[in-house]
């Protein structure tokens, strides 16, 4: 995909929804930035793609879960969700398994995403 929109902030998410709080705190930063009027895009790399799986449960692990936050992204006008195609295929995940609509990127398009944003926060 070559039509990555320009943006103010790219938030890179590299951790899954459980086991640590990187994903939650990264999404928090993205939502706050959007609330402050920044044009925010998300880039899911590596384990970060697990954040997007449908039908996630919450509670048993004592964590609040992050799926409700993903469902709120649209309300905050965060519509550019870039996902590393290779990270999905390495984990046997299809686009239909994901809970939100995303754009797949790989290789140079990932570098392009970094170049298209003025600022990057990496979680």
């Amino acid at each position, binding site marked *: 995909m070559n039509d990555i929109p320009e943006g103010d902030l790219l938030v890179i998410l590299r951790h899954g929804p459980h086991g640590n*709080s990187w994903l939650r705190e990264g999404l928090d930063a993205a939502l706050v930035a959007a609330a*402050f009027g920044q044009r925010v895009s998300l880039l899911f790399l590596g384990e970060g793609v697990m954040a997007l799986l449908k039908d996630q449960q919450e509670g048993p692990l004592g964590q609040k879960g992050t799926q409700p936050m993903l469902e709120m992204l649209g309300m905050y006008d965060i519509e550019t969700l870039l996902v590393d195609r290779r990270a999905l295929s390495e984990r046997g995940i299809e686009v239909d398994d994901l809970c939100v609509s995303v754009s797949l990127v790989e290789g140079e398009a990932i570098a392009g995403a970094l170049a298209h944003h003025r600022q990057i926060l990496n*979680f």
Partner: protein
Amino acid sequence: MRYALLVQGGPYSHQASHSALRFAEAVLARGHHLATVFFYHDGVYNAARLSAPPQDEPHLLDAWRRLHEDHGTELLVCIAAGLRRGLLDEREAARHGKQGHSLEAPFELTGLGQLIEVGRSHDRLVTFSP
């Protein structure tokens, strides 16, 4: 240039704080202005006022304080990440009915929005994560 640092690693657990402080020294030695350090994620523990490391180890808390005293660097701590992890200044401690407080000036509890503002208003924002 006006620099800001984002520190996301806990002190004495990860290299992040040490590297951030070394970078801070280098920035200042080059004549730049280190305007702000923002602490987020486990980085908020850097602000723990009762930190008491052994004498033969670097005193990270004092090193952060010195940045403020000598260079006016603002030391901002994300309030949401801080409260969850037990880092409360006197005001928050009173508000939450807690005895004692764990964070004090020159560290300052502030909203995550401030991190976004720091990113906009400084020439460089450099992240130190575990």
